């Protein structure tokens, strides 16, 4: 069955409306970026123009890679709520009785988290770059403008967000409690957060080749995770938490469909209620 963009759009629209009215999600989405913007901005603004090249690079690394934690942490919280939250509210079952396909539901939910997470990530970098251009020493501002870490970070934002989303959705599809799901989802997104942190603190030296390899690896992992999560979005799994027992058998011929009481009724042409 081909996916309907209208139904995907409906899921995205609904998810975004729910996020907008969820104080936990709004609070997380508002506070985390501010926290992760303050330290890097302060760090880069205190770098002196006369600093050695290595010192400048270190400052730029920390400033440009540390905020990558935001597109990891924000979607992990949102996606963890996405399925188990619906199950707790009792809204999942009515949705699954509509013609929405598993692909439409999955894409809709993932996109509804990806869009604000990526937008938030890019907004943070935009604000950071704008502040450095306006307030940092001219040499530091130029160094930021031409830093290879800048395009690398812009590529890592969606890849890291996607990883956090798939992990969150997978946890959410199997969990029975929202809080447990959010904790597990945060744990599951730690590898992605670790990548950002290790680059930020120069434990991994983010050369162009390494950054490209990491990006390629993340892309492959994201694709594999997407397929794995799609399997979890089976209706029976989502409703019962168990694997489907088997495929639905072929329908029987009309004459095979009969209850003992009704067979009697058919044969005699009269009402006959009896114990089965």
């Amino acid at each position: 069955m081909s996916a309907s963009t209208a139904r995907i759009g409906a899921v995205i629209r609904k998810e975004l409306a729910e996020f907008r009215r969820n104080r936990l999600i709004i609070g997380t989405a508002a506070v985390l970026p501010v926290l992760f913007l303050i330290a890097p901005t302060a760090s880069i603004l205190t770098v002196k123009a006369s600093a050695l090249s290595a010192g400048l690079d270190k400052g730029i690394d920390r400033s440009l890679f540390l905020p990558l934690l935001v597109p990891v942490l924000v979607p992990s919280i949102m996606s963890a709520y996405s399925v188990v939250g619906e199950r707790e509210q009792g809204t999942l079952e009515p949705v699954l009785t509509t013609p929405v396909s598993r692909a439409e539901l999955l894409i809709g939910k993932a996109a509804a988290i990806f869009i604000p997470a990526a937008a938030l990530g890019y907004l943070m970098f935009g604000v950071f770059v704008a502040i450095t251009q306006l307030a940092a020493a001219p040499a530091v501002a130029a160094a930021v403008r031409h830093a290879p870490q800048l395009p690398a970070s812009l590529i890592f934002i969606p890849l890291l967000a996607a990883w956090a989303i798939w992990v969150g959705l997978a946890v959410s599809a199997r969990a029975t409690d929202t809080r447990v799901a959010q904790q597990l989802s945060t744990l599951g997104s730690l590898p992605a957060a670790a990548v950002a942190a290790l680059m930020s603190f120069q434990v991994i030296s983010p050369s162009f080749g390494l950054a490209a390899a990491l990006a390629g690896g993340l892309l492959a992992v994201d694709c594999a995770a997407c397929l794995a999560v799609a399997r979890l979005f089976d209706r029976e799994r989502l409703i019962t938490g168990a694997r489907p027992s088997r495929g639905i058998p072929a329908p029987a011929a009309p004459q095979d469909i009969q209850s003992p009481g009704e067979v009697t009724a058919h044969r005699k042409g009269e009402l006959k209620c009896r114990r089965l």
Partner: protein
Amino acid sequence: MSGDSVVYEGLDETGTARGGQAPRAVPAAIEVSHLTKVFGGRTAVSDVSFRVAGGEVFGFLGPNGAGKTTTVRILATLISPTAGSATVAGIPMGPDGAAEIRRRIAVMPESPGLYQRLTVTENLEYFARLYGLPRRQERITEALAAVGLADRAHDLAGSLSKGLRQRAALARSLLNEPAVMFLDEPTSGLDPVATHEVHGLIAALRDRGVTVFLTTHRLEEAERLCDRVAIMSTSLRSIGRPEDLRRELFAASLEVTVAAALPEPGRVFGGLPAVQGWKAAGPAGGGPAGYALTVSDVARAAPAVTRALVAAGADVLSIAQSRHTLEDVYLQLVGDTEGSPR
């Protein structure tokens, strides 16, 4: 195969003859054949077969854990059966028909399942989009008007009372104008006023020609609303109209109350036409006394009993036909078979 082509002829049991109406041909809305569902090692539904006619209100009764909700979920294509087959709204269940079945049915689970942070209209709009409905706003307005919620359309669903949430959920179920509606314990946890409102809405669905599959363990509700009922306890115990199930399981009886205990009730009731037996049924002591008489024909027995009591000098306070409730039927069937091989 098309379920619409399957026609019952000359059958009361197919659900059209509520209140003794003449039988008529009705296409089947649901046909279930030997449906079985096993979760791990536990059998939730065992070899269940039944038919539901178009436009019928069909009650599906059973204790907790009897497999009612599992059956509904199978018919709503949410879970797949371990064995057996079914046709819903004329579409055979299977990978190819599942999406089409979902277009033609609506399910109202026990919990209303509304998004609490969205308004009633936003909730309905989401589902209207998922169904891909044209004229969405018009349909939402109509559905809300049908359940009397037009004035609460822009309230947050979380601010509604439980009864109003049930109404909103019912409005959501009406959006796609379903041929078959599954209502799973729709009055569970509702107060009497809200329950009465939901009953009214179910009656209105019947008037609109919607086939209603109602699972409940409120027997008075089933008796009041359903054309036929099926009593379920993992497997199907019985199926039929409530009054026929009563007649099938219980002999007719008369309840007699007199001002004082009869000195020799055996002489009064013995040998009367159509009276098969009697037992004392009222309170012991010096006050009014009661007797329960098993009879083969109420119309013949009642006058004879009256005459015999008067002849014996008894002051008759009342003679009434005892009426077994659906609860009696249910307890007899479910209690009877509890622990027996299925």
